[in-house]
């Protein structure tokens, strides 16, 4: 099998057992995004320490193998990064992490976790401060 296949075993394993899946109490930031094609949704929650470092990340919702695995892989990458660093991340980072070729129809599935992160980082994100 092609090692750049989006449905390679490594990706399917992330779908079967997604990392950082679930919800957390008292997140610093959270946002939800809905996939317009299939109605799948993803809730992303981040806990950030006073130094601006992501100390905990959770995602939840329903999704296809591509969006679930990409969320799993992308959230693993987010952990330990600063919010400042997250703000500089483009969609290319997900493509790099996923190492997969994907057609235009399914690309939005792969980038859903990036869309929801942008929501968190944008000015109108729901900032859930519990200070």
């Amino acid at each position, binding site marked *: 099998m092609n090692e750049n296949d989006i*449905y390679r075993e490594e990706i*399917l394993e992330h*779908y*079967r057992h997604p990392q950082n899946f679930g919800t957390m109490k008292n997140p610093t930031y959270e946002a939800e995004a809905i996939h317009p*094609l*299939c*109605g*799948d949704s993803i809730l992303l929650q981040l806990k950030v320490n006073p130094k601006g470092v992501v100390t905990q990340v959770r995602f939840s919702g*329903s*999704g*296809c*193998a*591509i969006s679930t695995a990409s969320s799993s892989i992308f959230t693993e990458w987010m952990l330990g990064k600063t919010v400042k660093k997250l703000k500089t991340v483009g969609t290319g980072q997900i493509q790099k992490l996923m190492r997969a070729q994907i*057609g235009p*129809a*399914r690309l939005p*599935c792969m980038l859903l976790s990036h869309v929801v992160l942008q929501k968190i980082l944008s000015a109108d994100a729901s900032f859930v401060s519990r200070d």
Partner: protein
Amino acid sequence: MNINTVRKEFPIFQKRGAKPLAYFDNAATTQKPKAIIDAMDKFYRVGNAPVHRGVYALAESATEKYENVRDHVKDFIRAKHREEIIFTSGATASINMVVSGLAETFLREGDHILLSDMEHHAMIVPWQAAAKRKKLKLNFIPLTKDGRIDLDVFKKMLAKHKPKFVGVTHVSNVLGTVNPVREMAAAAHKIGAIVLVDAAQSAAHLPIDVRKPDCDFLAFSGHKMYGPNGIGILYGKRKLLEKLPPLMYGGHMIEQVTREKTTYAPLPDKFEGGTPPVAEVIGLGVAISFLQSVGLKTIQKHEEKLTAYALRALKDVPNISLLGPTTAKGRAPVFSFTIAGIHPHDIATLLDREGIAVRAGHHCAQILHENFSLDASVRVSLCFYNTVSEIDRLVSALSAIVKKFQ
């Protein structure tokens, strides 16, 4: 034309290869036979002219071809009068024309509209918009577990809500259910309701006769019956169409225009404002000839066999849940399903790699999916050019996908 060799008429299937196209998205749009492509090509090459207004030979010939299709459609659906056939851009436009016309002229605040839970968004959304404008009340006929309309439930809803309008699809675009439109129309007429039958999913599969069921309005699209995109039909009873206001105002649909006012042309011109898509109308005419040369009854029988085969074959796919009726009787060859633990879009993408084209999503029927607590499903919709060996390919590809995800 022989149904067993009909596939040869479709250029798109002539491409050979390791994974030839198995096209299972016929409920969305069908492929086009060569005869239609050629007829439209020929019109643009040697016959192109505006219809109705020109007095030169080329325009007269285009007009004749265009108007001949109206007669052809009239006979195809067994309408009484040629002016009851309105060319539209498709079933969606046809339904919108009826809904907005009725809402403007016939309906008052508080009037009830009865639709079914299996309607396409093309029926639901125009009514929701009209209901908001005119303060109408929408009611939805629930479905049985196997995705049918229970006539007794329908009749009770008629008695309870006394709807002014009943809108129902002839065949469900998701479940394949063939609805008892004849009985439904008769019951609806008893309480004086106007009935619109959405025939978008049936026109290519079943004989259509606007007298049985007794339809007040009927809508369908050319591109779902082997014809071109951008052309559809609204059939309406003459008396109703005469009272209905036009939807498109402009050229051709007028009788006389002065600074003070405009009087409208008689039927069918009143509803055909603007320059019509002549090549598409000609293409639709050829599509109808094509269907007639195979024979709708022959098509129906052949597709019933395919349906029975597919229903049996799909049972072999592990963890599959099929929506809709489980028997081939009263069922069109449309199969929507889910497979536990695998997202419909993943199934569709992986089938595509095998040259199998299916649809994944809600298929413009979100309310229907809500009935089954689903967001999405995979839809396999067949027509007469599909084969048993294509169904076998589908079943083994699906089984391989299930294995892959385990």
